């Protein structure tokens, strides 16, 4: 089984990367690149009177996001000329030589509108886009990452220490992060900074932050809490010391020196609201549990009372739920909820108030009950007609004994297989619900990112959703082996 699972994981990772790369090519080649500035009109307006700076700004952004390689003249001359001063004079021999060299390398040389300087740019081909993404995708932290000329004596090692709460943690000096593995009170309780996925910076929304950071760090207001700093001082602070990264000695200020005895002073803050990912998960899991709590018993009752009024009622419900468009259902439920005093939008009462969650969770759960119910019913009915049920009856078992000991265990198998998939449905299904209720979650992020032409965010979310669905399939298959003895996950030639 180990070999099979390993093979499946490798194949899953390959599929995820294929999907992600395909989306990268589609987004970067298919969408006109000027559109990324639509949501950034403020910056463009500021530069409107200075066309050269505007050009620089636009090309710099494109380069940051990964569209192209942009080199202003100064960079061209630093890279390709020994005589920087001569190179910087347009029309000189050295200048012409460098320009020719760049043109030969496939660059387009463009003159600025006002000055007579030029810059070179070269669009990446689809293959280069994918290559650039893949080569910078995984960042593994190690003790030789930090190169700080002002701190030549920096110790370089990974060790097991304890954090500011006295809880053991894998720490590092010389790495980008101070804590490589640590525990805290937030789900999933064990965290790591060792391996980081890099999707690039978010633009034009959530500017100057990595996309993963945008969806995984807290939201809302900063939270002040009593903190003991590494050098022993205490005080109220918003900093989350687990997230600290290396700060170059040159930029360490007095406040940093007051709190930190090492250079790991670049910390993120604690926020009052959960991150987008966490918020989506809270809704997803709560809705999933509720959906199963409703649909499992309902489907079982429908199967047991097949043809009776309970069954007919259930079928009417399922029919309505399947035929009514989910958007219409969401608004209908919202109307009912509002009449009970539940908030219209999530931010009205905020994340601390339980009432903010009730309506979206109920809607998300009900949306997935219909198909669940009908499948549960169908599996139960299928199983009750099986021969082993007839034989169990001939054995003299009562109806309820047959049901609990024999039918249920067989009917539950396909249901168990689908549970991980349902988790994914909850999160991706919440795309609509989150938008309607203005919930700042990951589901709402996808349409928002598409609207804003936030390419890196689209790629990030694609990667996350794809990874979730593919690994949920694997998780479903692994779960199967626990409930169905006939299923063994093994590759050819592997002994059980």
């Amino acid at each position, binding site marked *: 089984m180990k070999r099979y699972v390993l093979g499946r994981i490798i194949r899953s990772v390959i599929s995820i990367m294929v999907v992600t790369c395909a989306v990268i090519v589609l987004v970067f080649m298919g969408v006109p690149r000027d559109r990324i500035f639509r949501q950034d009109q403020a910056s463009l307006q500021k530069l409107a009177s200075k066309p050269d700076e505007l050009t620089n700004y636009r090309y710099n952004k494109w380069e940051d996001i990964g569209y192209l390689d942009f080199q202003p003249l100064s960079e061209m001359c630093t890279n390709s000329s020994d005589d920087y001063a001569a190179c910087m004079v347009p029309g000189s021999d050295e200048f012409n030589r460098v320009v020719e060299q760049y043109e030969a390398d496939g660059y387009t040389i463009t003159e600025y509108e006002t000055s007579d300087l030029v810059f070179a740019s070269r669009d990446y081909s689809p293959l280069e886009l994918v290559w650039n993404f893949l080569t910078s995708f995984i960042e593994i932290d190690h003790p030789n990452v930090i190169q700080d000329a002002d701190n030549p004596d920096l110790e370089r090692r990974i060790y097991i220490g304890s954090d500011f709460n006295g809880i053991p943690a894998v720490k590092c000096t010389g790495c980008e992060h101070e804590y490589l593995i640590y525990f805290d009170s937030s789900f999933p309780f064990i965290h790591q900074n060792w391996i980081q996925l890099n999707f690039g910076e978010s633009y034009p929304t959530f500017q100057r932050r990595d996309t993963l950071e945008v969806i995984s760090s807290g939201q809302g207001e900063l939270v002040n809490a009593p903190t003991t700093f590494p050098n022993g001082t205490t005080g109220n602070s918003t900093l989350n010391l687990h997230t600290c990264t290396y700060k170059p000695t040159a930029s360490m200020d007095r406040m940093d020196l007051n709190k930190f005895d090492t250079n790991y002073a670049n910390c993120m803050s604690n926020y009052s609201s959960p991150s987008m990912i966490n918020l989506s998960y809270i809704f997803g899991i709560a809705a999933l549990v509720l959906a199963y709590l409703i649909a499992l018993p309902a489907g079982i009752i429908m199967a047991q009372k097949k043809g009776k009024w309970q069954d007919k009622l259930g079928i009417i419900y399922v029919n309505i739920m399947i035929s009514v468009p989910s958007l219409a259902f969401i608004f209908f439920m919202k109307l009912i909820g509002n009449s009970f005093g539940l908030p219209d939008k999530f931010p009205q009462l905020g994340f601390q108030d339980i009432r903010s969650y009730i309506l979206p969770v109920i809607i998300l759960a009900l949306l997935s009950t219909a198909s669940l119910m009908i499948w549960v019913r169908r599996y139960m009915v299928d199983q009750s007609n099986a*021969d*082993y049920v007839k*034989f169990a*009856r*001939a054995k*003299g078992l*009562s109806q309820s004994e047959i049901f609990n*000991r024999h039918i249920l*265990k067989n009917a539950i198998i396909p249901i168990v297989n689908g549970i991980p998939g349902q988790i994914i449905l909850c999160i991706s299904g919440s795309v609509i619900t989150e938008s309607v209720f203005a919930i700042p979650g990951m589901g709402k992020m996808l349409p928002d990112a598409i609207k804003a032409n936030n390419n890196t965010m689209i790629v990030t979310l694609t990667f996350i959703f794809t990874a979730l669905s593919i690994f949920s399939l694997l998780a479903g298959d692994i779960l199967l082996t626990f409930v169905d003895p006939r299923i063994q996950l093994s590759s050819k030639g592997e002994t059980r």
Partner: protein
Amino acid sequence: MEEREVILSAKDVEVKFRVRDRILTAIRGISLDIYKGETIAIVGESGSGKSVFTKTFTGMLEVNGDITNGTIMFEGKDLTKLKKDKDWEGIRGKRISTVFQDPMTSLNPVRTIGYQISEVIVKHQKKSKAEAKQMAIELMKQVGIVNAENRYDDYPFQYSGGMRQRIVIAIALACRPDILICDEPTTALDVTIQAQILKLIKDLQKEYGFTTVYITHDLGVVANVADRVAVMYAGQIVEIGTAEEVFYKPAHPYTWALLSSLPQLGVKGEDLYAITGTPPSLYDKVIGDAFAPRNPYAMKIDFEEEPPMFKITDTHFAKTWLLDPRAPKAEPPKAIRNLHERLLEITDERGDYHG
């Protein structure tokens, strides 16, 4: 033949099914005494009602079926009066057990073999789980499972078809029933395994002394195991007698036809015999002898009046007008006239076919 104790006595049993607003009479008045310790085989083609008839012994009729007439007396109780599952407690699976046709699907695929055996013991004999396990392993050994202790926790998919049928038999016999109904127990098995299973049931019967009711359309099985044979056609028993009587002195034209169509009696180069036509629709009232339209010996009266059960010997009865003194003499077809010799030719000394 000496007087024997009757263990189950069916009188005038009639079973009707409601099928989409129509009434189908599957069993049209069957009376049958089953004696303690005997092996009786009920034979007949598909749809003749043999399974339905025995299902009334355990209250296993489908929900749309009802016993509309008659009594089935077992240990002083009328089984036709039992309606709810609770009424059947202590009889079904305990005193009267059933072995079904397909061992591949008779066992729950996701429960261990051991669980499925000990479950009945716990249920009917009120034993503890540990005791039940010991008894189950003992049973598994008795039905010929090698290394029973280690195979107790195996699942059905880890057993072969023959071994599964042994387990099904072990489950059926777990509570030492008085009657074992074998509903085509060997149909789904290959011939070598068939013989083993039949021998197993025979041996166990000797040991425990239960009564066996075979339901089958395989006359080979019948010849092999049965003391008495009841031939069913269109929801009635048309001939009943000891195995010798039914095989060697058959009296009903349907039995003749059935025996003639034994593939083992086929002569190389000639077509196998097949009964022409189809059984009558049981939705309509059957007038006269139900077999008459397919019967080459049919007389006028066969189409007009239902024949009574004629007594041939103390143990041999047949329901055909041919036995009426007024009927012309009809000889059985040539193919089955010297059946005894022909059968001896094609079977070995143990009674198994080698042809």
